């Protein structure tokens, strides 16, 4: 049993089931990120953990104590909202101390904690201001301060960075991670931004359509996606998914793909994988960094294969150049070195690192292993 246990939890509004049987268990100090597109049920699940929404069936337990029917205030949790939800009529100090006041903590005990948290988040000079006089980043800090000061068992973050501009978002992301490392608190964090999910978490639950599609460490999610949704959702640019057929090649099973102009090419799988699936139509998944120019290929990989492909578009992005070709009628993006000399319209050798290849069933969209 973990620190936070979600057992068969579901949520329905009338006949509409927005969250199907969900099982997640995390240990103390873990950073769980719920990630998915809007409407996937991630915020609903967070609100259920917070107690702001009822659980239709199943159970949520914190520290082994069932939280079903327990009021939000009595769960010893704290939440940071997307809009920060700072009380507009109170000063920063009032905002931070409100929770402690409501829990009946005497003033002399509140003061040192406010000072400590303000110091930690560098908002000491803002304590007497109203939220309306603060910038977005400052409001974000105050919202975190309000959560931190309660010293809760579990922190809940509901898309806390999505109202910030791009640069500030990256800064605050780092800061949240630092804070987590420093304090070692248990965090459940909802976001639709897969980069936030990968950078912050110790574990990720990828959600879609009210189901947890996959629960795992960032590395598991990124390298070993359970289905095509996870593969396509996580990573930027997203994983290339293109149709192929498993055939018996000269050096074991290979993926036969259609290049532009009806040409076919065979790319052998690494280590003779997929031998039991010969003849099967599949979707082949390769991340852009597994499709490179020849010199940029992973030197440790035993299974890099060169295929001449016509170049459709090149997108120089500073540190890399993304090169797009078509395979099986789909755009396939490779991450080439920045200074590689490749032009649209010409044919260029693409290096496929098949050690990183993942294979999916085109019908069920599940992984084939």
């Amino acid at each position, binding site marked *: 049993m973990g620190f936070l246990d979600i057992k068969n939890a579901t949520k329905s509004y009338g006949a509409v089931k927005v969250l199907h049987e969900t099982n997640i268990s995390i240990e103390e100090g873990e950073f769980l990120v719920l990630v998915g597109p809007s409407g996937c049920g991630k915020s609903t699940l967070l609100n259920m953990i*917070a107690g*702001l929404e009822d659980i239709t069936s199943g159970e949520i337990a914190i520290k082994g104590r069932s939280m079903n029917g327990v009021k*939000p205030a009595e769960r010893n*949790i704290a*939440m940071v*909202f*997307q*809009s920060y939800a700072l*009380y507009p009529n109170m000063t920063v100090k009032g905002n931070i101390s409100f929770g402690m006041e409501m829990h009946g903590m005497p003033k002399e005990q509140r003061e040192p904690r406010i000072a400590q948290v303000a110091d930690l988040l560098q908002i000491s000079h803002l304590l007497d201001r109203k939220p309306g006089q603060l910038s977005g980043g400052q409001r974000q800090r105050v919202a975190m301060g*309000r959560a931190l000061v309660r010293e809760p068992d579990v922190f809940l973050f509901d898309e806390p960075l999505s109202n910030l501009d791009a640069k500030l978002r990256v800064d605050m992301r780092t800061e949240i991670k630092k804070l987590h490392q420093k304090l070692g608190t248990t965090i459940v964090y909802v976001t639709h931004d897969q980069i936030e999910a990968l950078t912050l978490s110790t574990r990720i639950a990828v959600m879609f359509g009210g189901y947890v599609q996959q629960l795992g460490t960032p590395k598991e999610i990124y390298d070993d996606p359970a289905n095509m949704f996870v593969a396509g959702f996580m990573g930027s640019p997203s994983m290339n998914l293109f149709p192929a057929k498993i055939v018996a090649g000269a050096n074991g099973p290979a993926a036969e793909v259609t290049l532009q102009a009806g040409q076919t090419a065979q790319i052998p799988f690494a280590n003779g994988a997929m031998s039991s699936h010969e003849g099967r139509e599949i979707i082949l998944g390769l991340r852009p960094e597994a499709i490179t120019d020849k010199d940029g290929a992973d030197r440790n990989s035993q299974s890099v294969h060169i295929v001449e492909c016509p170049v459709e578009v090149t997108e120089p992005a500073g540190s890399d150049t993304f090169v797009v070709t078509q395979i099986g009628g789909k755009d396939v993006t490779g991450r080439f070195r920045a200074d590689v000399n490749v032009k649209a319209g010409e044919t260029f050798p693409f290096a496929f690192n098949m050690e990183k290849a993942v294979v999916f069933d085109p019908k069920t969209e599940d992984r084939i292993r």
Partner: protein
Amino acid sequence: MSASSSAKSGINFGRYILYTLLALFCIYYLLPLYVMVVNSLKPLSEITSGGMMSLPQELTFAPWQNAWSKAQVGVEATGLRPYFINSIQMVVPAVALSTLLGALNGYVLTKWQFRGSTILFGLLLFGCFIPFQIVLIPMARMLGLMGLAGSVPGLIFVHLVYGIGFSTLYFRNYYAAFPTELVRAAQIDGAGFFTIFWRILLPSSGPIAVVCIIWQFTNIWNDFLFGASFSDFDSQPMTVALNNLVQSSTGVKEYNVHFAGAIMAALPTLLVYIVAGRYFVRGLMAGSVKG
């Protein structure tokens, strides 16, 4: 160059016409007030001799003193003072209670929605538009049963019941735009139903509270029908007393006293507008644009 300057003078010319028109309308609307003030400050002889529009030749405050404390209203010569006090005693609790209950209703209808809350709100709104005349007899019976007939508390009750519909409408629309996340944050912080209302919502309701107070104050203060129907001689509000003063059939019609009395009856609403009026438009906008 020349084209732009001529266009500019064209605009200026248009402006002059516009401002002249506005000034005319302004005078037109202020004329009654002028007549009332001027005539309340002159002896009756000046009015009856045909000098309605002229400024007073002999300035006197006697009509005001008369209207306030000496004039014959109803049976006794008490002036309007006791009725003014009746009106204050009626309007202050009625406005305060209906505003507060409206705020509470708006809070529940937006942040604690329950099955049928929309229908309930619809019914409350419907209550706003029931003509006063329809409820006169049932209300009289109700007040009788409650032992409040012919008293100031009875009038407070009637106005409270009638006011809740509008005040609920105002606050519901205002709170609909109030972020629900704040309520949820307060819930997690451990605040209960009333604490959230007192500490979070009410302090942020300034503009709409002003709108509601102006609206209720004006309506309740100016009401005549309920005042005439549900009050006794000792609990009549200002409007009814003013009517009695003007309608009294004994003696000479003292127009200057009547004018002074009418100004007295109108003054409180005027004051409320002057003090809080600038919030009025702001509050109306806040409710309508975001709601």
